[in-house]
């Protein structure tokens, strides 16, 4: 699927997410478990603040000199006998890979998990080739594929929204599995099925965690080991990578692998971290033909501008795992293959505000994402920046009309108007205030509260009661004046 995963409007997606209590419970449970694991892994390393600074520096440096690093990497891939293709768009990338598959006469493609291949909709493109089979080998991606290409809901845990019963049913209906819903049994079944497919694979497609500029190797990390089989068995390998995923050398790759593993899954290193390129003389396995497809697909929109920091991302998913909004609306709520805080920043950069303008507003700006990010992307600030671009530069309208919001700007910037507001508040709210049940103490202190407010406050009272404001003779400023004069006379 391309970046956009749903044609449903944002509010419909939110309602769909809320109607899925299993998903919500699964996300909350995953977030809580990861919170402990991630925190422990970082404390265990020590000096986390300084490690973050180093990781940020590596990523900022690479983004700053990106064309130079891409050139160095491409030269080194070619020196190893590999091929490099630069793709401006998703279609260019997918078509190029399709042509490789046709030229090689490939019929059995195996893939390891890669967000960028999802982004360029590669599976569908390859399946246009008659007789072609495409197999996702990451367990989660395999489950989604067998479930008629269901949407991933997390960039590290794509099947977070599915439970074991649903997975059992998919395996039963699609693959003839007749065992129970024990995850161990389901995984063993998948292992056996996938192993047979691996052995007949003639084209392997992988993503790339980091591309090592000075050696022409790519770095992939997995826990399952599927990427290594994709890189070992087929004669041809195609690597698809977002253009920003470079590091100067093995040393920086090693630092970022550590940051990634600890942030994504709370491990010191994932089970497999591999640095690989085209087969060298004397070796039996590994790719004889090695292609790297470097994809822009909207990333250059971020270069040199306010959103450049988004290119620092190493796709650890930690920001999803701490996000209180993601906790409730899940991946599907965002309608992008990149959900959560990073998705809300990245999706509009890649595809614009018409498609993803809702996402930057779907945040309470709590800053948990910015706090956890191992490469120090100021995510909540970039969300505000998106809002600024939409409101101040593009004059887009987001659920409130601009006149109202600008009115607030004038009122909160003009002392005389604010004084008027404080004066009329109590009276204006008077007719709306209810004497109805008050279950709280020290909250509704001025005679009633509001249950159904109009205009700006409607969203508030859709959810919560609003205390009636005090009379202007009883507000804080009036109190302070009185208090001061009492002090003087005391």
């Amino acid at each position: 699927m391309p970046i956009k995963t749903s044609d449903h409007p944002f509010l419909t997606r939110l309602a769909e997410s809320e109607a899925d209590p299993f998903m919500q419970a699964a996300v909350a449970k995953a977030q809580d478990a990861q919170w402990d694991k991630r925190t422990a892994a970082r404390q265990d390393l020590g000096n986390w603040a300084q490690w973050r600074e180093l990781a940020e520096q590596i990523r900022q440096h690479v983004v700053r000199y990106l064309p130079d690093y891409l050139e160095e990497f491409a030269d080194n891939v070619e020196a190893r006998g590999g091929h490099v293709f630069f793709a401006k768009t998703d279609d260019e990338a997918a078509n190029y890979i399709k042509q490789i598959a046709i030229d090689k006469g490939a019929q059995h493609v195996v893939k390891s998990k890669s967000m960028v291949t999802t982004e360029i909709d590669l599976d569908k493109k390859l399946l246009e080739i008659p007789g072609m089979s495409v197999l996702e080998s990451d367990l989660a991606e395999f489950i989604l594929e067998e479930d008629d290409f269901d949407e991933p809901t997390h960039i590290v845990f794509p099947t977070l929204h599915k439970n074991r019963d649903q997975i059992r049913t998919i395996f039963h209906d699609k693959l003839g599995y007749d065992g129970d819903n024990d995850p161990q049994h389901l995984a063993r079944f998948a292992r056996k099925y996938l192993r047979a497919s691996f052995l007949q694979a003639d084209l392997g497609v992988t993503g790339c965690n980091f591309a090592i500029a000075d050696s022409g190797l790519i770095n992939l990390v997995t826990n399952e080991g599927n990427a290594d089989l994709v890189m070992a068995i087929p004669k041809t390998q195609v690597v698809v990578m977002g253009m920003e995923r470079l590091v100067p050398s093995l040393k920086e790759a090693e630092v970022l692998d550590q940051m990634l593993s600890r942030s994504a899954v709370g491990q010191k290193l994932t089970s497999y971290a591999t640095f690989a390129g085209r087969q060298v003389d004397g070796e039996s396995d590994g790719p004889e033909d090695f292609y790297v497809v470097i994809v822009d697909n909207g990333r250059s929109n971020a270069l040199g501008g306010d959103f450049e920091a988004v290119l620092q991302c190493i796709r650890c998913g930690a920001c999803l795992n701490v996000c209180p909004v993601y906790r409730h609306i899940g991946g599907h709520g965002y309608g992008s293959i990149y959900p959560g805080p990073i998705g809300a920043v990245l999706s509009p950069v890649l595809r614009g505000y018409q498609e993803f303008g809702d996402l930057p507003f779907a945040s309470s700006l709590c800053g948990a994402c910015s706090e956890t990010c191992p490469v120090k992307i100021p995510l909540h600030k970039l969300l505000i920046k998106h809002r600024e671009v939409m409101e101040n530069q593009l004059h887009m309208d987001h659920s409130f009309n601009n006149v109202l919001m600008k009115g607030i700007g004038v009122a909160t910037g003009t002392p005389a108007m604010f004084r008027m507001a404080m004066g009329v508040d109590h009276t204006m709210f008077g007719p709306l205030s209810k004497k109805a049940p008050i279950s709280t103490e020290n909250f509704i202190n001025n005679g009633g509260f509001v249950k159904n407010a109009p205009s700006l406050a409607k969203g508030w009272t859709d959810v919560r009661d609003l205390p009636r404001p005090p009379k202007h003779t009883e507000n804080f400023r009036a109190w302070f004046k009185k208090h001061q004069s009492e002090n003087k006379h005391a």
Partner: protein
Amino acid sequence: MTEREAFLDSLATAAKRPRHQLQDHPFKPLNDLPDTTLADLSADDLFALAEKSSEAVHVDFQTTTKAALPQALDAFLAAKAAKTPMLPTSTAFADFGLTTWRDQLTPQPSFWVPNAGREANIDTASHADAAIGFADYLLAESGTITVATTPGQGRAFHFLPTHYLAVIKKSHILSRSRQAMYRYEKAFADGSLKTSNINFITGPSNSGDIEMVLIVGVHGPLDMTYLVVEDM
């Protein structure tokens, strides 16, 4: 202009930064944490940490001596009830004093054979129920073995067999991945290492993709044993 040049130029234009500035601004890390973290551990400290870290990632961590190595390997194969063991083609057998053991091993092992070709070696590995390989280094911090692919010990050697044991010298226990990278970079630079692939392997294959329940043994080996040779 080539497609590559057009692409790179377009990035420079978008970024409003000229190309080819890196030469004058090479990467200089702002701190030396990768070098200094766990740098002051003694050999025994490293060993103790390696054991703890390995066990934390579900590795069967064993030790032996050079003299007792054959018995330790026999015990491993017996414990796994191996019927189709697989070995690499490697000069390490001589180094570890295992030439005779290798030549007399029963059941008769199969080998990853240089120049035997992709299909033959992959077929052998996929039918092996146990593999015994030689690792380059063991990283104490994370319980990670590192291994560079060679003609006699291919990539799939480490992934297709059902059970897997790596033999490592105690003197090759390093504190962290940074120290391993220095050694690989040096070996690339002086020409002593020609490889297409370096694996960092931290315990057996696993997945949490189904309800985040940990499953050990997905695509790679179902279990993993590290055998550290204490007097080497």
